[in-house]
């Protein structure tokens, strides 16, 4: 996004102080990323001996060590994360879209109840859900499976809530009426008329869900035992845990952390202009 044209020709003086303050903030936010970038170039011995921000000579070795670690289990973790986040976010967006649309467009009995239940769902601490979810899935022998991490995350109260706001804002009632006049069924109206209108908002829902699933730690931590199915967050956590006994693993953890955030940052830069958060701010008036 470019800077907005000035509404009023005010003082054109270049505001030094705000720029400097923001740069400080940016520096603070980029610091750990810069550090991990430098630290991943250090060999195990350099990590603890040379100055923090001095690049080392071991980046390629670190990457190949990480790749060799337990026959490439790290890349398996990355693929798992991509799978959980991609498929999970896609399904979640689809469910959010139909549910949000129904809540925005129709008047029906129980609408308020549905909405309040959803709100309560947003506020549920994940652990109160995750522990009994684990026990219930254990009853049907489904724990420690891809589905055990995927299924509980598909219904996202927050996603439904956002989709409802987008549907209410983007789909005018008379367009739906016109569709009915033309004799279209409700499902067809949704699919051919409303869905394209909601699409920009749904991209935002998808991104939210993708980040939420990719960053989720608690659910896989509780559900999974077999590290072949781990997402990268959980994999790195277990590596770090072992690292307290074998510091040699620290370089692997750091390199792994860097490689794990690169795709996310790339994704972020590529699609950040699709984020339409303007409706979020108005969302509090309920």
């Amino acid at each position, binding site marked *: 996004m470019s800077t907005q044209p000035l509404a009023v020709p005010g003082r054109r003086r270049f505001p030094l102080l705000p720029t400097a303050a923001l740069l400080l903030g940016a520096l603070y*936010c980029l610091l750990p990323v810069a550090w991990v970038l430098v630290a991943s170039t250090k060999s195990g011995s350099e990590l603890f001996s040379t100055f923090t921000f001095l690049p080392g000579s071991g980046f390629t070795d670190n990457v190949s060590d990480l790749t060799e670690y337990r026959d490439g289990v790290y890349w398996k973790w990355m693929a798992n994360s991509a799978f959980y986040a991609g498929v999970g976010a896609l399904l979640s967006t689809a469910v959010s879209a139909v549910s949000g649309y129904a809540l925005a467009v129709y008047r029906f009995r129980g609408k308020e109840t549905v909405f309040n239940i959803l709100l309560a769902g947003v506020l549920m601490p994940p652990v*109160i859900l995750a*522990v009994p979810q684990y026990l*219930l899935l254990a009853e049907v022998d489904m724990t420690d499976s891809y589905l055990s991490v995927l299924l509980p995350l598909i219904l996202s109260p927050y996603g439904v809530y956002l989709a409802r706001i987008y549907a209410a804002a983007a789909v005018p009632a008379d367009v739906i009426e016109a569709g009915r006049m033309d004799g279209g069924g409700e499902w067809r109206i949704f699919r051919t008329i409303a869905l394209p209108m909601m699409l920009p908002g749904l991209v935002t829902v998808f991104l939210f869900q993708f980040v939420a699933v990719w960053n989720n730690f608690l659910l896989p931590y509780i559900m999974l035992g077999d590290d072949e199915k781990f997402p990268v967050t959980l994999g790195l956590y277990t590596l770090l845990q072992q690292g307290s006994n074998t510091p040699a693993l620290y370089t692997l953890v750091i390199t792994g952390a860097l490689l794990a955030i690169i795709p996310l940052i790339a*994704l972020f830069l590529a699609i950040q202009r699709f984020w339409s958060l303007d409706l979020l701010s108005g969302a509090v008036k309920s």
Partner: protein
Amino acid sequence: MTRTPRRKAYGVKSAPYAFLVPATVLFLLFFALPIGYAVHLSFRRTEVEGLGLGKGAREEIWAGLSNYTDALTDPELLHGALRILGYGAIVVPVMLGLALLFALLLDTDGLRLRGFNRLAIFLPYAIPGVIAALMWGFLYLPDVSPFLYLLDATGLPQPDLLDGGPLYLSLANIAVWGGTGFNMIVIYTSLRAIPAEIFEAARLDGCSQLQIALRIKIPMVAPSLILTFFFSIIATLQVFSEPTTLKPLTNSLSTTWSPLMKVYQDAFVNNDIHAAAAQAVVIAVATLALSFGFLKAANSRTKQGDSR
């Protein structure tokens, strides 16, 4: 409850129910059922006979409110709650204060590097909490930390960033780092939605940038401040992955540092799912009460303020 829509344009009555089928099924399976099961478990306990070996040696019996009295009188749970309150008292004001400040600064006329700064401050949002905790954890670690290196070089005393009071600040810093940018974007977006005429009028009246920020901008973005405040409180109460990740790096983080960690510990390490269930229910009720109380308070405040 739900009926399939008839294949006619008259399906309008039943259509919303049909649209809500997937959400309803998922809700029942992954929200209602687990919550019901947790409540059920919280009223029961395991009776062990003899050594607890073999079949029939363990049975579940009705426990009444005993799990709840245990949970409410559990000193460790109380301490965890107090720790979280202390942590939240640092995180929420600092994070939202910074988010508001940065949003207002971004909204300054004629600013350079606006896009770069906005993106850089928002970037941590894309980084998983576990990885953020891991990166900061290394930056706190005595042998690796650049901060401690600099303090050492200048001959100043080095605090232990992973112990005692500094540990709270270290944990809070991870949350502030991760959350400021997202909240800044939400506030900034609503700042951009303020009509330009308002500023024009204020400038003609001779208001300075600072006065405009304090008297016009902040009151006008109050709804988004409430929203960010609300979500920040919830996120803070649910902190789990950051302290769990830092645990291998320090001995001062117990496995029961936060209430949620204690629930996990009781359920999966001590194998006492009944105690864990009761604690989880208590935490959930407390969270809901806090959140709805806050929303009610915020709503009545904005209603008073909406008399424009």
